């Protein structure tokens, strides 16, 4: 039974105002297409969850979609600040922050994906994080007596997980940097798989060790080539570092950021429209040079 729908349908059906939404991917596999559709559909009061809010959340914040941010590093990697995020925090005080370290937030996903109410970790000693985040608590090890930090499980309403290939049922395979895609998918109540390539199940079954997310936990599948630009997809297209650098100036200026959203998000109907605007030349520049691995043998 095919679960394939358009991004518009997937977001309309699965994301409601007030939902908690995790859009994962660590530098790699960040689904900007889904973020832009959330903005176009004017979703409101979202709890937005990501280790690294990145440009996609800066855009969501600027568009007024986000009420609460659960995160661990809010910057433009290698460039500077997320200025919409900073304005919301420093000037407008319009964003509720729930702040972790990477390991701390990841541990919340680990608990959520494992069916446990909490996760223990050795962390946070001597830092100010527990003072600003009451979710950081501790347990005593029943063997050594030492105190360990804990975080509570997180189970987002919706996860958006981008991958290199998936079949119509949502069996999804990814390689390169995994981020927390698997943990996020298993932790969440509803899962949208967004894929660069829609493949037959035979392709999945030919290399089962690469499967990150099994179809039976997936609600909807969206086939969205180039769905991550300006983020990247290993084996498909490179990160658009120039875009990230340029974002510094765009997001620093509130009016200019609003115009950018008008032009690149509200002004296009969907990802295909965005790509048309981006242009074939830019896509050609970013297209990955092939570097194919050899297969392995699954025979017996």
């Amino acid at each position, binding site marked *: 039974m095919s679960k394939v729908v358009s991004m518009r349908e997937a977001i309309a059906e699965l994301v409601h105002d007030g939902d908690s939404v995790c859009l994962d991917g660590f530098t790699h596999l960040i689904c900007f297409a889904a973020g832009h559709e959330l903005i176009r559909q004017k979703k409101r009061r979202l709890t937005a969850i990501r280790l690294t809010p990145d440009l996609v959340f800066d855009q969501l914040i600027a568009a007024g979609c986000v009420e609460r941010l659960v995160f661990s*590093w809010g910057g433009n990697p290698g460039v500077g600040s997320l200025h919409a995020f900073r304005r919301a925090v420093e000037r407008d005080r319009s964003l509720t922050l729930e702040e*972790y*370290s*990477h*390991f701390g937030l990841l541990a919340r996903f680990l608990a959520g994906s494992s069916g446990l109410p909490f996760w223990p970790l050795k962390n*946070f000693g*001597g830092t*100010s994080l527990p003072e600003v985040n009451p979710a950081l608590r501790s347990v005593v090890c029943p063997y050594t007596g030492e105190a360990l930090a804990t975080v509570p499980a997180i189970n987002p309403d919706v996860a958006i997980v981008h991958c290199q290939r998936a079949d119509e049922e949502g069996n999804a395979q990814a390689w390169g940097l995994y*981020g927390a895609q698997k*943990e996020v998918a298993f932790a969440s109540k509803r899962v949208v798989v967004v894929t660069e390539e829609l493949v037959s199940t035979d392709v999945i079954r030919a290399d089962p060790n690469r499967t990150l997310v099994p179809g039976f936990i997936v609600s909807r599948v969206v086939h969205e080539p180039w769905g991550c630009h300006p983020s990247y997809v290993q084996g498909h297209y490179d990160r658009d570092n120039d875009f990230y650098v340029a974002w510094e100036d765009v997001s620093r200026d509130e009016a200019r950021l609003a115009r950018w959203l008008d032009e690149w998000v509200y002004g296009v109907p969907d990802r295909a429209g965005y790509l048309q605007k981006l242009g074939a030349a830019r896509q050609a520049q970013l297209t990955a040079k092939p570097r194919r691995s050899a297969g392995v043998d699954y025979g017996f």
Partner: protein
Amino acid sequence: MVYRAARELRDGDVVFVGIGLPNLACNLARATHAPSLCLIYESGAVGAVPQRLPVSIGDPALVTDSLAVVSQADIFQCYLQRGLIGVGFLGGAQVDRFGNLNTTVVGDWAAPKIRLPGSGGACEIAVHAQRLLLIMRMSKRAFVETCDFVTSPGHRAANGKTRRELGLPGGGPTRLITDLGVFDFDATGEAVLTELAQGVTVEQVQAACGWTVRCAAQLEPMPTVDEAVAARLRALDPQRLYL
């Protein structure tokens, strides 16, 4: 500063590489005296051999030809928390004399003057790395009596507790490398100036430091970059991302 940091790395070290200057220092060390340096990135790349200087710690060049790509859960649990990371590198907006770092906020967290990115993996690197190298440019704004927020723990907390009392397994800061000189940390966990950059005086260091600088009995000169190393650095960073 980058060169001085690179010299802290020994061949075969397993290094947790952050973005920016540490990235450049690690790649310089790998290109010169430490070809078997194992570079690990919090994004999941292990034994990376980037063919271009990575702009971010999640650059695709870190994946291609690396020895392993693993989940972030494995990076933080099996590599870092397990105690396998020999060297970590951190910088920050503020540092105090015990090596506590702030990369979270200037001012009050709930009503910040400047909102910084936050911890990322910095907190756990400071907690778990066996040796921790701090790299920062000196200024009174950055070298403070007390950090506005402690993102990554140093040798002692504000309440005086030691790493052992705080349950921190890693070794804590071993060097604080700056543009003006290098600090070690003594047995009490306090920074002690041990090296001075060429042409820099102790007075200049003190003028750029918010706490009273303690000096070692003997101050060594900070090693300078020769033309060969400078050329190597320029080759590593042709776009001048960090230089």
